[in-house]
């Protein structure tokens, strides 16, 4: 590995602060953002935008855990720590669960994207072709290391805001009374909605893996808080504008309520906003898939204990992913199974984080013993 590759390898993994925020923002704001209102509206009706804010507790809690771990061992991520503290076998098992989760999220994102694309515009393409194209591209991106994916997610950050801004024009059309009466669904409604909203903030767990790779180590707190704030802002705005424009009854019925809002905003130049929306949205989805893909590669590398290079791992796992994605219907046929998996995964994450935070603060690595 001559000098150039060494430097490449070296700064491949330390990200600038803005890239880091983009990555954290990128994992949280993904395919489910345009349909965040679906789950929450059952509980919190027209106050769903408050419960999306309440939902932000989950990422903040995960962030606190990471800060505790980061204080103790800034060098290694959670995968190596697992192995170090809980021994090879137990640590490996915990990492395996993480790996399986990333695999499942990849499949969920891929599948929802395929549904959307086939219904909206590319009706003639078969699911296989779409899956193949999507995963091949993100495999290529992920295989070139975290830095490339970080740059892509930076661009995607600006694109996301490009999509959100036109909905401000919808403020002019409708009336403020669709939101009234506020707090009507009471404290319990909002909290249930908040728990339901945890699902939207899934993706924060990537900071467990990539926290060692930030260049200015001292900026860690500021950068992650920025990302969380941005995500909450986006989620609250989408919730607010959907209720403001459509009213809570219509949201109950439609899957992608935010699309209804953006579609009604006709800009004088382009009479149909949908075409641009699909184009820009695909870019954002590809970004989140390649993010999860690189997280998956981290776990795989740890699982196969550093035998293979990233490039090989990426293209080995590609056909498996495409196959699983097509068979997605029969692996997770009903909605309930998916919900169950996501909820159980939330609990697992909280458990893993707290466990690691406690063990790191109590046990000093020196007298770590093999068990």
């Amino acid at each position, binding site marked *: 590995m001559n000098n150039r590759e060494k430097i490449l390898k070296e700064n491949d993994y330390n990200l600038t602060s803005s890239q880091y925020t983009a990555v954290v923002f990128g994992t949280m704001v993904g395919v489910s953002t345009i349909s965040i209102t679906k789950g929450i509206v059952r509980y919190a009706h027209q106050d769903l935008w408050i419960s999306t804010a309440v939902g932000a507790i989950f990422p903040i809690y995960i962030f606190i855990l990471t800060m505790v771990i980061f204080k103790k061992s800034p060098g290694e991520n959670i995968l190596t720590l697992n192995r170090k503290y809980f021994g090879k076998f137990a640590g490996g098992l915990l990492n395996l669960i993480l790996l399986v989760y990333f695999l499942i999220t990849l499949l969920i994102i891929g599948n929802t994207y395929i549904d959307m694309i086939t219904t909206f515009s590319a009706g*003639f393409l078969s699911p296989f072709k779409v899956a193949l194209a999507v995963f*091949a591209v993100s495999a290529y991106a992920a295989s070139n290391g975290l830095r490339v994916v970080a740059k892509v997610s930076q661009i995607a950050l600006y694109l996301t805001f490009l999509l959100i801004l036109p909905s401000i024009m919808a403020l002019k059309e409708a009336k403020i009374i669709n939101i009234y009466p506020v707090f*009507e669904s009471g404290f319990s409604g909002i909290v249930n909605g908040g728990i339901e909203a945890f699902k939207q903030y899934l993706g924060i767990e990537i900071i467990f893996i990539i926290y060692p790779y930030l260049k200015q180590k001292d900026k860690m707190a500021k950068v992650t808080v920025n990302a969380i704030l941005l995500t909450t802002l986006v989620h609250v705005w989408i919730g607010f504008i959907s209720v403001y424009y459509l009213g809570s*009854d*219509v949201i109950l*019925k439609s899957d992608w309520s935010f699309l209804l809002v953006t579609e009604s905003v006709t800009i004088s130049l382009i009479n149909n906003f949908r075409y641009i929306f699909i184009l820009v949205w695909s870019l954002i989805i590809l970004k989140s898939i390649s993010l999860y893909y690189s997280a998956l590669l981290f776990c795989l590398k740890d699982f196969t204990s550093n035998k293979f290079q990233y490039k090989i791992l990426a293209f080995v796992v590609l056909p498996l992913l495409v196959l699983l994605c097509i068979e997605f219907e029969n692996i997770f046929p009903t909605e309930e199974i998916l919900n169950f998996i996501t909820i159980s995964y939330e609990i697992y994450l909280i458990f893993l984080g707290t466990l690691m935070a406690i063990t790191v603060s109590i046990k000093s690595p020196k007298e770590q013993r093999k068990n």
Partner: protein
Amino acid sequence: MKRYLIIITILLTYMFYLYGNTRVPIEEVDIIVGFGYDVMDKSNGQIQYSVPFNSYIFKPNEEKLSVTKTGRGKNLTEAEQDRDSKVERKYISGLEMVYVISEKYAKMGIKDLIDERFRNTEANDMAYVVVCKGNSEDIFSFQELGYISTSDYIYGLMKNIDGYNFFSQNYKLIDVFVRMDSKGRQVLLPYIEISKNGLNLTGLALFNKDKMVKKIDIKEARILNLLREDNVKGVLSIRKDNKKYIDFYAKSKNRKVKCYKENGKYKFDINLTLTGEIISNTLYEDILSSKDVKEKFEKDMKQQVENMCNEFINKMQYQYKIDCLELGRYGAAEFGRLKNVDWNEIVSNSEIKVNVKVMVESEGRGDY
């Protein structure tokens, strides 16, 4: 390693191309500009759905033509399949301008129609929805001078509807989605019919939930619109006798509705502000120079508009028994949306007070 990669990519691209695609470029396709929904009761008492559509056909010598094709069937989906089978060329839906629903269909309820449109992502939410007298097929076959297809004519009619008669622009498909099932809101669509001097707008079709309940004629529709919509424009006039009258082109600002409960009885206050200019005046002498003549006119106009509104409200509360002014929406916002309460009934026996403020902006260039 490099060589394997290249071979794989070539293989993939070839497979991609192999499947080919069946998309047809735009010229050989007709564009649908209008959908119609009719209902006819057949001889044996059953109901037959007929769904015509009006589309452009592009001829090579650039002469655009419009043609109407209909499909019939026992229910909506069957009728639509029958219609698709009759079409020999590929057609694009998604650019339609107008949905014409016949009165009979509307009276039976448009739930299934709206549901189909809501689910189908290719539906154009910004197309106008209109209720017509008789069958929409006759509407489509009506030939208007200078217009290729009737849908163009209706689209033009609807686009300029907000110039007068206090109509607004909330008669699009997305407005129907939003209004049909929301708490305390009613769907209200323009009513068109073919009269002796051509196709024109003769009133409003009032819906309760998804069924059309009443056709309101144009004179009453003006008052209803004035009370219900915001930022609408229309002409109000005071007429003493054939020669002495004054016309006031009024623009209404956002109406303010306050809803409160007094000793168990619901009360609604509607505040309207009308600003505008005088377009013809032979009633008031030199309204131009003296301020008190202008104030006198403003007082008279306020009185007249309030009388008209109260008259309509009584009719609404006792005859129609439907909250067609969307007061239920403000009630729901005030007293909570979750309790399933029938706002029509509440509004029908609540006490509604209308308060109008008239301001004359400018008198054009002078007063003859």
